[in-house]
C-alpha cells in the first residue's frame, strides 16, 4: 500500500470511530420510550410527555412503533434487548410485568412512587400490577373501563326505543327492534381481539364478578367448563346474530364510526371508544351518542390499565432520568391531559376531572363504588387477568366458536382443554 492510501485508510477508520463514539456521548441523559401510541390524540399526549421531560433536562426519544396491540413494538423491544441496547421504558402491562420482573432487567422506581405517594393516590388494585417483589418497577398511565355499551340516540329513536337497555332481555329486544327497521343493530365482530373484548362484559353479566375471577384469574377448570360458561357463550352467539357478517376484518374504530354516523345502533367496546368518538366530532354522553354500563353490569367495573416498565440504566444520570420519567408519567398534570384525550380516566383518584366528558365522569364514580363493593375485575381480553398463553387460549376458543357452528357446550369443553395446556406453559 502506498503512503497516501494508508493515510486515507487511517483517516477513514478514525472517522468511523468518531461516528460510532458520538451517539454514546449524547445518550447519557436521553431515554428511549418504546410505545405503540402512534395515532392522533395518543401521539399528541406522548409529545406532551416529551416536552415535560425536556423541561427537566431529560431528552426523551419517543419510539412510537405502529401497530395496535403492540405486537410490533414488543418485537422491537426484544430485538433491542438482545442487541444489548436497553431502552428507558417500554409499554408493557398487566401480568406480563411480572414476567419482565423475572428477567432482572427492570429498574426500581420506588423513589418516584414515594414522591408521588402512589400508595395513597393510586388504587391498590392498580398498584399491585406495578410492583415486582414489593418494589415498583412500572408506572400506570391510564384507567380504562370495558363494560360499556355505546349507542346512537337517533337510531334508537327511529326504532322506537326510549331508554337504553338495562338488562339482557331488554338488550336483545332492542337489537331486534333495530334490525326490524333495517339498520345495523350491533357493530362488532372482526378479529379475535374484538370478539374477546365483546365477550368480556357478556361473561361478567352472566356469571358475576366472583365467577369471572374464578375463570379468568384463577383459571379454574370447573368454573370454565360450567353451565355458566355455556350460557355466556349462548349469549355471545345471540349478539353475533345481530352483528353483520360483512364487518369481519374491520377494526373497532371503524365500528365506532358506524355508531357515530348513525349507521349502527350499538357497540360493545372499552372506553378508548371515547377518544374515537371525540375524534369524529361527537361527544359521548352528548346529544348524538350515549354511553351506558353494559346491561346487568352497572355496579361492576372491568378494568384495563396501560403502563410502562422501566429498565435499569448503567449511568447515574440515566437512573435519575428514569425516576423523573416515572414521576412525570404519574403527575396530575400529565395524567389529566393524557386521559382526557384517550377516553380513560387518570389512575390518580385525588385529581378532579375538569373538562372530562359525562361518560368519563361516570367511569370515575363507578370505579370508586365498584372498588368499595369488590366488583372490580381485571379484563381478560386486555391481558390484565392472566399471562399470555391462557389469555391466548381463551381468545382462540372464542374465535373458533364465533366463526363456526360449534355448540356452546363443545366450545366450553375445548376452552377448558386449551387453558389446561396453556397453564402448563407458565
Amino acid at each position, binding site marked *: 500500500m502506498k503512503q497516501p492510501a494508508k493515510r486515507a485508510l487511517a483517516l477513514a477508520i478514525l472517522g468511523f470511530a468518531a461516528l460510532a463514539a458520538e451517539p454514546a456521548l449524547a445518550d447519557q441523559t436521553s431515554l428511549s420510550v418504546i410505545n405503540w401510541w402512534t395515532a392522533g390524540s395518543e401521539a399528541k399526549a406522548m409529545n406532551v410527555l416529551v416536552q415535560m421531560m425536556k423541561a427537566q433536562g431529560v431528552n426523551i426519544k419517543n419510539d412510537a412503533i405502529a401497530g395496535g396491540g403492540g*405486537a410490533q413494538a414488543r418485537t422491537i423491544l*426484544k430485538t433491542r434487548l438482545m442487541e444489548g441496547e436497553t431502552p428507558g421504558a417500554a409499554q408493557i402491562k398487566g401480568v406480563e410485568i411480572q414476567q419482565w420482573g423475572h428477567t432482572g432487567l427492570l429498574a426500581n422506581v420506588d423513589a418516584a412512587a414515594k414522591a408521588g405517594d402512589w400508595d395513597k393516590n393510586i388504587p391498590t388494585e392498580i398498584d399491585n400490577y406495578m410492583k415486582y417483589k414489593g418494589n415498583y418497577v412500572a408506572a400506570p398511565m391510564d384507567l380504562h373501563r370495558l363494560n360499556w355499551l355505546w349507542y346512537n340516540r337517533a337510531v334508537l329513536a327511529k326504532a322506537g326505543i326510549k331508554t337504553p337497555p338495562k338488562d339482557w332481555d331488554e338488550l336483545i329486544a332492542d337489537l331486534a327492534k333495530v334490525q326490524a327497521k333495517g339498520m345495523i343493530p350491533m357493530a362488532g365482530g372482526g378479529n379475535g381481539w374484538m370478539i374477546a373484548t365483546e365477550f368480556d362484559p357478556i361473561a361478567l353479566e352472566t356469571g358475576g364478578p366472583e365467577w369471572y375471577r374464578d375463570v379468568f384469574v384463577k383459571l379454574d377448570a370447573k368454573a370454565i367448563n360450567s353451565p355458566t360458561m355455556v350460557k355466556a357463550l349462548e349469549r355471545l352467539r345471540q349478539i353475533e346474530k345481530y352483528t353483520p357478517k*360483512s364487518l369481519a*376484518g374491520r377494526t373497532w374504530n371503524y365500528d365506532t364510526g358506524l355508531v357515530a354516523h348513525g349507521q349502527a345502533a350499538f357497540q360493545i367496546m372499552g372506553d378508548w371508544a371515547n377518544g374515537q368518538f371525540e375524534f369524529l366530532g361527537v361527544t359521548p354522553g352528548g346529544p348524538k351518542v350515549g354511553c351506558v354500563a353494559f346491561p346487568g353490569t352497572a355496579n361492576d367495573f372491568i378494568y384495563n390499565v396501560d403502563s410502562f416498565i422501566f429498565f435499569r440504566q448503567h449511568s447515574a444520570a440515566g437512573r435519575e432520568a428514569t425516576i423523573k420519567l416515572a414521576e412525570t408519567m404519574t403527575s396530575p398534570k400529565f395524567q389529566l391531559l393524557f386521559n382526557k384525550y384517550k377516553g380513560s380516566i387518570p389512575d390518580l383518584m385525588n385529581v378532579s376531572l375538569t373538562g372530562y366528558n359525562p361518560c368519563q365522569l361516570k367511569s370515575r364514580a363507578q370505579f370508586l363504588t365498584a372498588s368499595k363493593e369488590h366488583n372490580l375485575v381485571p379484563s381478560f381480553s386486555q391481558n390484565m387477568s392472566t*399471562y399470555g398463553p391462557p389469555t*391466548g387460549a381463551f381468545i*382462540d376458543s372464542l374465535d*373458533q366458536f*364465533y366463526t363456526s357452528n360449534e355448540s356452546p357446550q363443545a366450545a366450553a369443553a375445548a376452552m377448558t382443554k386449551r387453558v389446561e*395446556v396453556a397453564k402448563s406453559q407458565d
Partner: protein
Amino acid sequence: MAHSLMQRVGGKDQVIAGLMLSPTVLAAIFFIYAFILWTVWLSLTRSTILPSNHFIGLANYHDLFGSSRWWRSLSNLGIFGGLYVAISMAIGLLLAILLDQRIRGERLFQVVFLYPMAISAVVTGVAWRWLLDPNFGVQAIVRSLGFTHFQFAWIDDPNFAIYTVVIAAVWQTSGFMMAIFLAGLRGISPDIVKAARIDGAGTLRIYRRVILPNLAPTFFVAFILSAGLAIKAFGLIIALTGGGPGYSTNVPTIFMYVFSFERGEMGVGAASALIMLAIMMVVVVPFVILDARRKV
C-alpha cells in the same frame, strides 16, 4: 508456504475466488445455520417472552400438536399450497404456450402478465381485500348491474376465506410462472418440433409427447419456486384477511409469528418454525436429489 498452498488449491485465481466468497460463506453459516440451530435449541426450552435456557424436552412440540389452531394452520397450508401451486403453474403454462405462438405485441403481454409480481404482497393483499369485500367489490358491482341476489362473500366466510388467498396469490405469481415456462419453451430446439411435424404429429400431440416432456426441468423449477412461495406466504395473507375471520386463514407462518411475538410463547413458536422447515425439506429434497441424479 503461501505458494504451495496456492498450488494445492489450484492457482491464484481460486484463492482469490475463495477469499472473495468466504465472507458470504461465513455469513451464510452464521445467519442461516447458526440461527437454525438456535431455533432448535429454543424449541426445546421454556422460552416465553424472551429466550431462556430452561430445558423442557419435547413439551413444546406436544403443546403444538395439541393445538387445534396449529392443525388448522397446517390444513390451510395444504389447501392453499396445493391449489396455489397447481393453478398458478397451469395458468402460467397456458399463458406461456399462447405467447409462444409468435404473436404480435408479445413483449407487451409479457410485461402485463409479469407486472403483478412487481407489486408487493401487502399492496396485492389490500387491493384484493377491497375487490373481494362484499360491500364494495365484486359482489356490489354485480349486484349494481341488476343481479340483486348475487352472492360472493368468501372473504367473510371462515370456510371459504382461504380460497380468497388462493385467488390473490395466483393472480400475483401466474405471470412469473409464465415467464419461467416461456423461457423453457424457447429452450426447446425447433428442430425436434420440426422433426415431429415431418413424422406427421399434430399440434396437440407435439405438445403432449414432445414439448411437455422436454419441459420437465422447467416444471421442476416452477414447482420448487411456487412451493417455496406458498410455505413462506405471510404478508399477502396478513394484508388480505389478517389470518381471519377468526383464525380460519392462519398458516404456519402466521401461527409462528403470533405465538413467538404476540403470545409470548417463543418455545412453541420455535417448534412451529422447525416443523415448517421440515415441510419445506420434505417438498424440496426429493426434487433436489432427483435433479442431481439426472445431471450425473
